[in-house]
């Protein structure tokens, strides 16, 4: 079982670095994960991460990309409300990278 070391604790993650236990998440973990990817987390990143966490809290799943895009459009203006912008922020794809930082599991099935 791979782990991330944080404050002397071994936090369990899966093979791709997603948290095994979602309650382990704290904002610092997102930072550690992004540092491992050499990725800087800006306010824009955090906005998305926080939205993902709120959404997950309510629905127990990451939002559809559509929903995410619409949310950004609402908050940051139409020029940023597109998947291209999301991929700029999260080069590995918002569904994967952003969800990982946010401590969400990746969706499985026919997706």
């Amino acid at each position: 079982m791979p782990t991330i070391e944080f404050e002397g604790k071994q936090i369990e993650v899966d093979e791709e670095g997603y948290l095994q236990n979602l309650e382990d998440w704290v904002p610092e973990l997102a930072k550690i994960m992004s540092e491992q990817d050499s990725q800087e987390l800006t306010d824009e990143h955090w906005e998305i991460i926080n939205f993902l966490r709120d959404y997950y809290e309510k629905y127990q799943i990451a939002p559809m990309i559509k929903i995410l895009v619409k949310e950004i459009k609402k908050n940051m203006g139409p020029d940023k409300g597109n998947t291209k912008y999301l991929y700029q922020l999260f080069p590995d794809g918002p569904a994967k990278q952003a969800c990982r930082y946010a401590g969400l599991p990746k969706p499985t099935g026919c997706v």
Partner: protein
Amino acid sequence: MAKPTKPTKPPKPEELVKIDYNPPEKPWMEVPVEFKPGTFCYGTRPKYLEEIGFPNPREWSPLDDDWKLPADWKDTVLKGIGERLKKNRAFHLFMDICVRCGACADKCHFFIGSGDPKNMPVLRAELMRSVYRKYFTTGGKLFGNLAGARELTSDVFKEWWYYYYQCTECRRCSVFCPFGIDTAEITMMARELFNLLGCNTDWIAGPVANCYRKGNHLGLEPHTITSNIEFLVDDIEEITGIKVEPTFNRKGAEILFVTPSGDLFGDPGTYTCMGYLMLFHELGLDYTWSTYASEGGNFGFFTSMEMAKRLNYKIYAEAKRLGVKWILGGECGHMWRVVHQYMDTWNGPADFLEEPVSPITGTKFENAKTTKMVHIAEFTADLIKHGKLKLDPSRNDHLKVTYHDSCNTSRGMGILEEPRYIINKSCNHFHEMHEDTIREKTFCCGSGTGLNAGENMELRMRGGLARANAVQHVRDKNGVNMLANICAIDRATLSTLMQYWVPDVGVSGIHELLGNALVMKGEKERETDLRLEPLPGKEDEDV
């Protein structure tokens, strides 16, 4: 493994396509299995197995030397084989009658894409047959290796695991086999054996556990389903000016509609889902969605027959609870293999339902007399034939469409004409791919049977080479830019496949195309298609 590993990216297409089809010098029994990164899935985490009450939940990785199998694993496997031989004639027969003529060898998309001889269907089956001979036939017991028999060892077990998760049960080999030997049947049995020992993959066990408890693979909870669909409803209103009003878990509806949950979540499946919603609204169909039976697909089918039955149970149970007359099924591949060939046997008879009749055309769907479940392509084709839909195919003029027959619907059902009919009525530009790659000879997307994970991307791209190559051909020849299909796994996996091999081709369900073309009563002039992309001729106005 202390550090999290990132999934290996597949090599570049021009690298990947350098394939050596020459088998090695050594006999195959002496070539040990090698777990190449990017060609296998992670082992399932214990919690999924616990949720469905499966044996041997534990932390493990296929790369571990010790798979933490129970001490009596070998007995379990051999007993499991023995039982299945007695319970399933196909399995028994397919262990015995292969003549190794090799007609199947180059029919497998994984062999074409990898050149690995153990991906030849005949050899994939021999992996198991060799053990069968050793323990279940006199010749094998007496002559061992000379009779093509070998001991079951943990290496053999691992080899099985590796290669039976490199088979998508697409049945293409079975079409070409002079005895109809279907590797899918053997793969299914192998996977059942793995599940006796807790050796599923994470990508299959996860959806199974989700589906069992929450009703669908993705684990969409009831309010998530309604919220997602409401989101699609909003998009439809934006595009057409019409507010469609779907209902959920509504008792007394005439029809229960079941579709794969991928359509409720992932692009481009969601566009297909919009197509359904628009069509049903336009017809004024008395139908309902169910959040409990919210999955048409069945990853249980990639686990064991029993698990498949446990998941499939919900469809009839919910139809009964809601008191509907019959069931309509959305676009999905393995869902239809299950519905068409297994559902009634497992969970029937559905004598509480009525023989399906289209409320719009009065057509009796006699081919669904006992299951009471109609494929939406049959339903829609019938509507179009009877002139019940007003279609403007020019709205799809920006698309040059080709059609991918899904393995399950073509070789496990035989629905070939209806989707083509719908596409032809919804689009002006339709081009078939090479005849040896469609209909019963269609190629798998390379990621079926739960292989559509992220960590085995190289395998998926290899497996999809044959399909992608045929698409590339019509793209180059006819300018095709849209790959239509009737399968949710396809919609997810072909998108990735196209990005890799044929980047400028999109993927869609046929009801997305229909939704684009459908002229609805009282709709506003459409500016965009269902993807909110400007329609041909409307590009300028959009700016």
